[in-house]
C-alpha cells in the first residue's frame, strides 16, 4: 500500500514539476532572447513578466477551436495528443535526485527505475514523431505536409546516432538503468577527472547533444517549423490549445533531454571531487542532490535558448547530410573505439 502511495505521489510531483519547468522555460526563452538581442523581452505581466506564460495559457485556452473543413478530423485531433503524451511520459525513467529516507523507508528520487532505462526513452521519444506526422498530414495543408515530411526524415535519421551514442554509454557502464549509470559516476578516475560520462565519452557526448537538438526540433535543426519557409510547418493549421500542446510538448521534451544529458554525461546529482552524501543527513542529502541535479538541468535548458538565438538554420538536405554522412559514421567509430578500449583494459 505504501509503495503505491509513494509511487502516486512521485508521479504527481514529477508531473507538476516538469510542467512547471516547461512553463517557466517559455518565459526564459523569451527573456533570454531579449537578453541576447539587446531588448527587454516580455516584461509587462507580473514581476519581470513572470506571469507571461500564464497569460499565454489563458489566451490559448480561451481561443476558439477551429478544425479546417478539409482536415482529416481524427488525425487532426490525434496529432497534438500523440505529440504531448510521450513528451510527458518520457521523464518517468529520468532521475531527479539520489534518494531520500523518510520514516525508515528508502525512496529513490525517480518515478521508476526501469532496468531498460533509456531504451524506454528512445521508444517513447520515437512516438512523438507520430504526432508531428499525423498533425501535418491531417491538416491537409501543403506547408504542414512539408513540415511533417521534414520532421519525419529528420527525427528518424537522428535517432540512429542518438541510439549509437547511447550504446557506447552502455559499453562503459554495463547497464541501461539511468539510476545505475548515475551512481557509477561518483568519484574520480585517472586520479583527477570526475567520473562523469563526458570525460569517458567526449565524442559520444558531442554526438548525443547534436542528435538531441535535432530530435527536439530546435535551432539549428528547426526545419519542421521553419517559419520563414513553410509558415509554421506541421502546426500551421492549428490554433487554441491544440497548438498549445505542440508548443508545450516541445518544452517538456527539452526538460527530458536535459535530464538525460545530465544523468548520462554530467554526473547526475554528484558534485565533482566532493561526496556530499557522506556529510549530509539522509533527508538533506535528498534535497541537496535534487538541487544539484536541477542546477545542471537548468544549465542545459539555458543552452537550448542560447543556441537558438545564435545560430542560423540548416537546410533540409544539409541536415540529412550531417546526420548520415557525419554523425552516424562518427558514432560507429566511437562505438568501435569504446569497444576496443574496454576489450583491451578489462
Amino acid at each position, binding site marked *: 500500500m505504501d509503495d503505491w502511495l509513494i509511487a502516486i505521489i512521485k508521479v504527481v510531483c514529477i508531473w507538476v514539476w516538469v510542467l512547471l519547468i516547461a512553463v517557466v522555460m517559455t518565459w526564459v526563452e523569451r527573456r533570454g532572447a531579449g537578453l541576447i*538581442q539587446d531588448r527587454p523581452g516580455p516584461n509587462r505581466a507580473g514581476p519581470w513578466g513572470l506571469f507571461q506564460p500564464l497569460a499565454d495559457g489563458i489566451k490559448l485556452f480561451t481561443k476558439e477551436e477551429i478544425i479546417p473543413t478539409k482536415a482529416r478530423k481524427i488525425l487532426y485531433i490525434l496529432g497534438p495528443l500523440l505529440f504531448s503524451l510521450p513528451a510527458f511520459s518520457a521523464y518517468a525513467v529520468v532521475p531527479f535526485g539520489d534518494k531520500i529516507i523518510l520514516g525508515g523507508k528508502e525512496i529513490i528520487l525517480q518515478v521508476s527505475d526501469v532496468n531498460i532505462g533509456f531504451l524506454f526513452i528512445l521508444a517513447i521519444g520515437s512516438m512523438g514523431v507520430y504526432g508531428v506526422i499525423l498533425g501535418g498530414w491531417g491538416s491537409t495543408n501543403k506547408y504542414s505536409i512539408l513540415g511533417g515530411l521534414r520532421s519525419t526524415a529528420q527525427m528518424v535519421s537522428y535517432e540512429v546516432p542518438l541510439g549509437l551514442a547511447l550504446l557506447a554509454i552502455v559499453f562503459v557502464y554495463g547497464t541501461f538503468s539511468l539510476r545505475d549509470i548515475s551512481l557509477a559516476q561518483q568519484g574520480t578516475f585517472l586520479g583527477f577527472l570526475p567520473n562523469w560520462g563526458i570525460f569517458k565519452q567526449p565524442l559520444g557526448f558531442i554526438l548525443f547533444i547534436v542528435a538531441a537538438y535535432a530530435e527536439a526540433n530546435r535551432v539549428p535543426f528547426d526545419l519542421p517549423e521553419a517559419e520563414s*519557409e513553410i509558415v509554421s510547418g506541421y502546426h500551421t493549421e492549428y490554433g487554441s490549445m491544440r497548438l498549445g500542446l505542440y508548443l508545450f510538448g516541445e518544452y517538456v521534451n527539452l526538460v527530458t533531454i536535459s535530464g538525460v544529458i545530465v544523468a548520462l554525461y554530467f554526473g547526475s546529482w554528484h558534485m565533482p571531487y566532493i561526496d556530499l552524501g557522506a556529510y549530509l543527513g539522509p533527508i538533506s542529502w535528498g534535497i541537496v542532490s535534487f538541487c544539484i541535479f536541477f542546477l545542471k538541468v537548468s544549465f542545459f535548458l539555458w543552452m537550448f535558448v542560447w543556441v537558438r538565438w545564435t545560430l*542560423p538554420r540548416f537546410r533540409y*538536405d544539409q541536415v540529412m547530410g550531417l546526420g548520415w554522412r557525419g554523425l552516424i559514421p562518427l558514432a560507429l567509430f566511437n562505438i568501435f573505439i569504446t569497444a576496443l578500449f574496454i576489450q583491451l583494459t578489462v
Partner: protein
Amino acid sequence: MNQNPTSQTSYESDNYVTINIGPSHPSMHGTLRIITMTDGETIVKAEPDIGYLHRGVEKLGESLTYHQFIPITDRLNYCSAIPNNVSYEMAVEKLMGVEVPEKAQLIRVIMMELARIADHQVCIGILGVDLGAFTPFFYLIIQREEIYEIFEWFNGARLTNTFGRIGGVDADLPDDFEERWEELKPNVRKANDETEKLLTHNRIWMDRTIGISAFSAEDALNRGFTGPCLRACGVKRDLRIDEPYCMYDKFKFEVPVGKNGDVFDRYIVRMIEMEESLKIIDQAYKLYKEMPSDAPLMARVPKVIKPPAGEVYSALESPNGELGFFVKSNGSANPYRIRIRPPCYMMFQALPELVKGEMVADLIACISSLNIIAGELDR
C-alpha cells in the same frame, strides 16, 4: 486536386506539387507571390506573380503638382525613402535645368548615405531572419532606429521622410548633427562587427549562402540587374562613380565587387558598402563644414513648378540599385507622365532562373538577398 478552372493547370502534374507562396507569407517581404512547382523540396519551376501592392503611383502623379508627388515617392522603397525623393527631385530639376546649390547637394548626400546604411541593415537583418538567425536582425535594427532618430529630428518623419524640395532642401542640418553623427558612427560599426561575427564565418551560414542562386555577370547584365546584386556578380557598376551626381565625384570610396553573384556575395557587398557609406558621410560633412553658414539651400525656382514641355530620365544609385524617374511635362503644373524604374523589378524577373533547381529554403534566401521591396516593385 484543384477543380477551379482558373487555376494554372500547367502546374499540376503527377510527380510535382504546386506550392503557392504568398502573398501573405511570413517571408514574402510585403505582398509578393511566387507559385512554385516542387519535386519534394526541390523547385522545378517558380513563377513570380506581382501586383498585389499596386497603388497606381505613376498614374497618381498625373493629377498632382510636381511638389505634391514627393510624398508619394516615399512609398516606393519604404526602407529608404530619401533616395526616392532625391531621385525624383533630380529628374524634375534636370527637366527645368536648375542647378542645385552645393550645400543642398551635400545635405542630400549625407541623408542618402544614411538611408543606404539603414536599407542595407534591414536587408541583411531580414536575410538573417529568413535563414533562421534572429539575433543579428536586432543588433542592426537598433542602429537603424538611431538613424531614424536623426531623420526624425531633421524633418519630423521617420519612415516617409518627404526629404527636400525641387531645387534643393528645405532645411539645414541641425546644429548638433556632428555630435549625433560621432555617436552613431561607432555604434553602426559595432553592430556590423557583431553581425559579421555571428554570420560571416559561421559554417551553417556559409553552407546556406555560398553558391546559392549564383548568377553570372553576363546574365545579370542581360537581365538588367543593378546595385549590390549586380556588383556581387563581379560587374563594377555604380552610378555614384560612373555617372556622378550630387558631387559624388569629390568623395573617395571603394565600390565592393563580388565574384559569384550568390547570396553570400550579395551579403558581403552590402556589408562593405555600409562601411564605405560611413566614409562618404564623413567626407561630405567635412566639405559641408567648409561652406559658409549662410550659403543658399535652394536654387531659384518658382513657387509653382511648371517645367518646360519635354521629357527627361534621371537615375541615381539607390541602396537597391539604379532608381530612375522618367518625367514628361507638357508645360502645365502637373506632370504629363511619370514613369519609375525600380531596381528590384528587373531582379524579380530573373527569379525563375535564379532558383531553378534550388530548394524551397533557398528561394527564401534568394528573395531576401535580392532585397525585393513590394512597394517599389508594384508601385
